[in-house]
């Protein structure tokens, strides 16, 4: 009994301390409100250090303004945003990507940046980076960093198999020939695959469809148009890599192990993937990593995607936000950001790639010339994007495409026009 009473007392004391702390934390907040605090939200922890640096600089140049940054887990970023923005408790400045731009821009929750275009100097960016963030002719986003799709290959595995490294004149048949020599079997199991086939609409089959002269969405983006002879040919080529030739693993095995892990572990000799993963690949493979443009067929194609900073239309401090956005649109921002990502700011990417002097990063920079935007629909973009990827996954479980694309088109177009 005594033991329990003393335990209860200890708990009560702790509880009191806890309450005191909880109230104290509330108090500290009121003090901070004398300075104007802007909230910045983003979802990649890798950016914490560079943003800290940027914020320090910005705050030093702008006394009276504080920037508070919050990293939100990627999986829950949109959920939190959806709850916070409409209630006015959201960020003042935050990251937005292409698919979500379609849903967010028409809501009136995002600040129109066109009135401030002289301050922001959009001419410092290639227009392909801010076009997805245009609504009713006005620009709403300041581009941040981009990635495009290229071919990664493992030099050590190429050397072992005696295959020449990929060049920028590679076509699908060169790709196929190399994949065949790089696939190694041990009795019934393949222990090394030439490449990995990915139904993904950013880093996978969409690139091939475009390279073959096919198309993804109609110009008004209101209907999916992959069901063309060129599109079907491209998809069948990918399926053949898996089922006819065995140079690539089945999609379910790929998803179990994940494409990046397959490449990093040496289980796949070359993969087509986006450049966001360059840092990781380079850390693991070091000098064995090589990059080249994705193989061409009837033309070159590489899907690109970029993020933009947008501001909340309901922000309490519009002037301060504009000052911060101006900083985020500056070359100084690009300089600091380039230690982690490839900035959209003109010339910013070169600063990033300078760190990878042993790689032919000019190939990545070149993709701007033949880049196609991430395929997103004109309406319901987020849900449609997920639906499309799911349907593509399903098609790729069969060796023959058959009516696959027609089916997908029907389903996706129904969702777009819901």
């Amino acid at each position: 009994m005594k033991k329990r009473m003393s335990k209860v007392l200890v708990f009560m004391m702790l509880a009191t301390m806890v309450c005191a702390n909880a109230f104290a934390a509330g108090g500290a907040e009121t003090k901070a409100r004398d300075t104007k605090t802007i909230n910045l939200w983003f979802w990649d922890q890798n950016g914490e250090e560079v943003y800290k640096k940027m914020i320090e600089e910005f705050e030093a140049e702008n006394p009276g303004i504080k920037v508070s940054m919050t990293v939100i887990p990627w999986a829950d970023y949109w959920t939190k945003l959806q709850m916070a923005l409409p209630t006015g408790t959201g960020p003042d400045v935050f990251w937005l990507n292409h698919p979500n731009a379609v849903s967010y821009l028409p809501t009136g929750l995002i600040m129109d940046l066109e009135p401030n275009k002289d301050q922001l100097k959009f001419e410092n960016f290639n227009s392909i980076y801010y076009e997805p963030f245009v609504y009713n002719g006005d620009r709403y986003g300041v581009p941040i960093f981009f990635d495009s799709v290229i071919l990664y290959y493992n030099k050590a595995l190429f050397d072992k198999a005696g295959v020449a490294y990929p060049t920028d004149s590679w076509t699908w048949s060169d790709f196929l020939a190399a994949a065949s020599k790089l696939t190694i079997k041990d009795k019934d199991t393949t222990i090394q695959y030439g490449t990995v086939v990915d139904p993904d609409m950013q880093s996978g089959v969409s690139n091939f469809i475009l390279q073959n002269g096919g198309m993804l969405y109609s110009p008004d983006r209101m209907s999916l148009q992959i069901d063309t002879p060129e599109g079907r040919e491209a998809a069948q080529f990918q399926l053949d890599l898996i089922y006819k030739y065995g140079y690539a693993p089945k999609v379910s095995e790929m998803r179990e192990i994940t494409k990046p892990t397959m490449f990093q572990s040496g289980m796949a000799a070359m993969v087509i993937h986006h450049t966001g993963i360059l840092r990781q690949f380079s850390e693991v493979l070091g000098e064995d990593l090589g990059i080249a443009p994705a193989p061409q067929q009837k033309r070159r194609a590489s899907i690109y995607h970029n993020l933009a900073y947008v501001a909340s239309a309901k922000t309490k401090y519009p002037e301060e936000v504009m000052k911060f956005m101006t900083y985020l649109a500056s070359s100084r921002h690009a300089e600091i950001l380039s230690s982690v990502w490839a900035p959209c700011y003109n010339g910013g990417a070169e600063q990033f790639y300078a760190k990878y002097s042993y790689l032919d990063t000019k190939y990545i920079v070149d993709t701007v010339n033949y880049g196609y935007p991430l395929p997103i629909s004109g309406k319901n973009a987020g849900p449609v994007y997920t639906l499309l990827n799911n349907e593509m996954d399903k098609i790729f479980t069969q060796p023959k495409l058959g009516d696959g694309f027609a089916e997908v088109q029907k389903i996706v177009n129904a969702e777009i026009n819901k």
Partner: protein
Amino acid sequence: MIKIQKQKRISVGFFVLALVAIITIIPFFWIIVSSFKTYRETVQIPVAFFPGSFRNLDNYKELFERLNFLSYYKNNIINTIGITVPQLFLSSLAAYAFARIDFPGKNIIFMSLLLALMIPIQMILMPRYKLILDMGLFDSYLGIIIPSIPSVTTTFYMRQQIMSLPRSLDESAYLDGAGHFRIFWSILLPLCNSALLATGIMCLVFSWNDFLWPLVVINSTDKYTLSIAVANLQGQHLTKDNLLFAAAVVVSLPMIIVFIISQRYFIEGIALSGIKE
């Protein structure tokens, strides 16, 4: 009364139990050994079971030095104790009333409480969030703590517990002039020690690991809980398993220690004193 001496025996049952225990604990071994690996070691195929060196503490260093896990510990402790202590007390109090006092609407009210368990929590996030905003508890510890204190599970469990205690105890105390609170606090509750401990631990673990509600309420990184910090380790494009599993060890360890310590307090044998058989 014959005292039956039973020495600690190893029987067939023991071996079965041991086998099941080993199978149960294998995933933990995986988590622990992975926490010492470098990222490169986690992307090898086939994945090696053992890390290159058990002395590789880089993952732990990163968690505490770069990623601030120590301050998240503080937040977790505040939230967990702030939730558990009031919850145990208030739930037991309510449980006593449901178990021992006959009042109008008792059963309907109790069933309506169970309703609270029946909807997936994601559906009620928004209205709850608005409530918290209106109460001015947004982005605060109390915003996490207060909605988490009322618990159907704890109340339900304690009600079951109290219902299984003999009413003769209540009656003899009442005859001695005790009111409801005295009966509750001095007579019945002490007899529920095992139950309180069990449900207390469950509440502790649940609030320690709670993820969704804290994520919704908190905007300031410095008030993040450990579960949010772990979720941040899962990137958009890839997750570094070595860091993730080191974080798993760091997050689970306090709860495991609490459980081990609490083992001593599980009362053995007769918990009902003063009962005449």
